[in-house]
């Protein structure tokens, strides 16, 4: 390593607490590169072990409702229209019209320009998911690639917040991360978080998407998770859903372990959102088990845990109907969106 003039980074409370004041890129790098490695075989074995839990009867009923309550119902297509968003919102509020005891989902997740339509369609049901209301999450910062100037990313974010988004799902600059410019990634997250501020002093919640499918190695995922948390992420999120593989159980377990370690050191709770590729109830229950046995079941609330999914909810509804009636129906007995 050559000694160059230390590059100062935008200070965050978290980074200062862990790495000291006058935060520099060098200090950040030394921390990230000094983290203990991840043994891929062992990590995947542990995830496979957690997958063998057998969740039955009352536990299953609770798990199914929790999946719905913590789901970000998502549509992120070039073909999205106001009509599509309105119907997504209707589904978010009333996932199963045949059973009104079904909880609402946590949020709808849309592109920034669709936020006004989502807000309008939600009307009085717009609000905190802990209170049974539905939030609006917007992807921002040149989602999904993140390949745009910081100014554009910040404008993207500000516009979504101004339109009423409660949560911003940003992507990190994977190119900067993979080329070792941790400071760039860090400063961008800090800047986007500032752009989440509203005039009244409150702030949209920030989910930081690592796009683990592009980071490739578990060691990278671990470093990026730490980086995002230090930069101030409220949630860390696996994927955009546009890159394969999207969320996997081992990656989610690894990110939860970082969240657990952060909680161990500071007592502060950071949220987690796996997104993309989780389609069946059975799969989703495995994620709940992994959360409960890694960070604790107090994480299983919309403020700390989300599924990013588009088709998962319908499978959960079928399972829910089966538990209620004793028999399986079919895909035509739940609404398409």
């Amino acid at each position: 390593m050559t000694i160059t003039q230390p590059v100062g980074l935008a200070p965050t409370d978290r980074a200062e607490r862990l790495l000291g004041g006058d935060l520099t890129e060098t200090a950040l790098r030394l921390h990230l590169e000094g983290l203990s490695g991840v043994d891929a075989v062992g990590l995947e074995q542990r995830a496979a072990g957690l997958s063998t839990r057998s969740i039955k009867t009352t536990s299953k009923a609770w798990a199914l409702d929790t999946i719905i309550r913590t789901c970000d119902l998502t549509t992120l297509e070039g073909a999205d229209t106001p009509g599509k968003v309105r119907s997504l919102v209707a589904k978010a509020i009333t996932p199963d019209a045949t059973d009104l005891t079904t909880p609402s989902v946590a949020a709808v997740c849309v592109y920034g320009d669709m936020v006004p339509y989502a807000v309008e369609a939600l009307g009085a049901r717009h609000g905190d998911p802990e209170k049974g209301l539905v939030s609006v999450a917007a992807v921002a910062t040149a989602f999904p690639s993140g390949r745009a100037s910081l100014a554009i990313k910040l404008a993207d974010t500000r516009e979504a917040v101004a339109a009423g988004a409660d949560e911003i799902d940003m992507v990190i600059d994977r190119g900067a991360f993979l080329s070792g410019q941790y400071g760039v990634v860090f400063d961008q997250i800090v800047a986007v978080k500032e752009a989440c501020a509203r005039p009244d002093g409150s702030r949209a919640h920030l989910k930081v998407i690592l796009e683990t499918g592009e980071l490739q190695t578990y060691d990278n995922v671990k470093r990026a998770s730490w980086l995002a948390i230090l930069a101030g992420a409220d949630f860390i999120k696996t994927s955009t859903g546009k890159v394969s593989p999207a969320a996997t159980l081992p990656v989610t377990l690894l990110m939860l372990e970082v969240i657990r370690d952060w909680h161990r050191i500071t007592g502060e709770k950071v949220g987690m959102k796996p997104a993309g590729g989780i389609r069946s109830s059975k799969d989703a229950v495995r994620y709940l088990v992994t959360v409960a046995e890694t960070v604790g079941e107090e994480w299983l609330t919309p403020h700390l845990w989300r599924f990013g999914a588009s088709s998962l909810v319908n499978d959960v509804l079928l399972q829910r109907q089966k538990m209620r009636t004793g028999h399986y129906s079919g895909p035509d007995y739940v609404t398409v969106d």
Partner: protein
Amino acid sequence: MAFLEYAAAPESPSILNLKAQYGLFIDGEFVDGHGDVFDTISPATEEVIASIAQATAGDVDTAVKAARRAYETVWSRMSGSDRGKYLFRIARLVQERARELAVAESLDNGKPIRETRDVDVPLVAAWFFYSAGWADKLEHAGLGPNPRALGVAAQVIPWNFPLLMLAWTIAPALAAGNTVVIKPAETTSLTAMLFAEILQQADLPKGVVNIVTGPGPTGQALVTHEDVNKVAFTGSTNVGRMIARQVAGTQKRLTLELGGKAANIVFDDAPMDQAIEGIVNGIFFNQGHVCCAGSRLLVQENVHDEVIDRLKARLSTLRMGDPLDKNTDIGAINSAAQLERIRTLSDTGENEGAERWTADCRIPDKGFWFAPTIFTKVSAAHSIAREEIFGPVLSVLTFRTPAEAITKANNTPYGLSAGIWTEKGSRMLALVDQLKAGVVWANTFNRFDPASPFGGYKESGYGREGGRHGLTAYLEASGWDAPAALSAASTAPADGKRAARKPKQTRKAVAK
């Protein structure tokens, strides 16, 4: 409700079709023993499962005679590929009846169904499949052309992996062309009896495998029987020593797989979360009833506190209870006697000054249970650092340098296994060379594969099980190069005399 208190998800013992009483399995038939019968109980509930026959010396003699007859008339004359067909058939039947075998094993042994279902029974099938493949390829076993079977093998196996240890010993013996008389452990005969049913289903020629049940004296009658050619014992070092004395001076070949006090060495650059899992798997797998268990944790002093904190947090998520519940991690201790031994040794540890920590588990009212326990501030002189506890008890010691880690790891009369946790490949390889242990695991623990030889240094025994090396424990070199036309015909010795013994393999195995 608390999600983490997962609703009960038990496997039902009603899928079993058990008899109230089991006899001996001799010459292809279930027959009554001439000794008293004894009960086999479920260690989780202390309820009687079935009564088991006790084989007398006379019964053992009948069994050995049946095995000799089968060896002379059928098994040694059969071609290797035909022997292989029977072994493949047994392997497939084990897979077909896997669920039943898993439930029976959990019921009788007390180990959780998660392990019998995901580890024990799949490995049993794998062992038969692997050995079946060898049956017609014995000339590649490293003993030269036309290696010969030994004859009748007497096998005495332990209670910790009842069906798996049966497979470990029977499968290579049969593949090599031997016939077998096997004695399961007194407390865990049930799955051996179900296995006998599988042998009947497979139409294995009568007498090729005989199963005699009973306590220690039955085993003694078996290993001292004058017409056995090979003795294989898996169990405690004390009994192994006794058997070695009894077999000394006879023509019998002997392999012993005995105790262990394995060091699991964690360096400060280890992949920490996976190392914690490995420590848990190393000592709390099968309630610590594992001869190769990582019962001595050697942790680099600068990460000691962090490792212990993380370990305690992880242990607090282990679920102890009904072995048949699919979410149980820690089952019951196999017997009252074993529980007593674990208690005594743990109390000694406390009295000698080590610091005891026990996970907060609800202990069921009935049955034999011991919550996962860690001892810190253990020194090499403490008895819990030297004696095999064979239970869910971990002794934690520290080291400062790699050299000290090696010295401490090797400072034991045993030498069955060891584990290394580091991200540094060069350190891994350097340590493997210097550890006096038959198996060294790197960044994993308690992984078994039929192709990998397994066995110990020093008081952990001699000989190897598994792989090509395990097979050669049931073969001897023929010393002559038969014409190709004869080589497939027979593995039988021409006149019953044995050729000179080949030196034993002592190569070290490195598992993934």
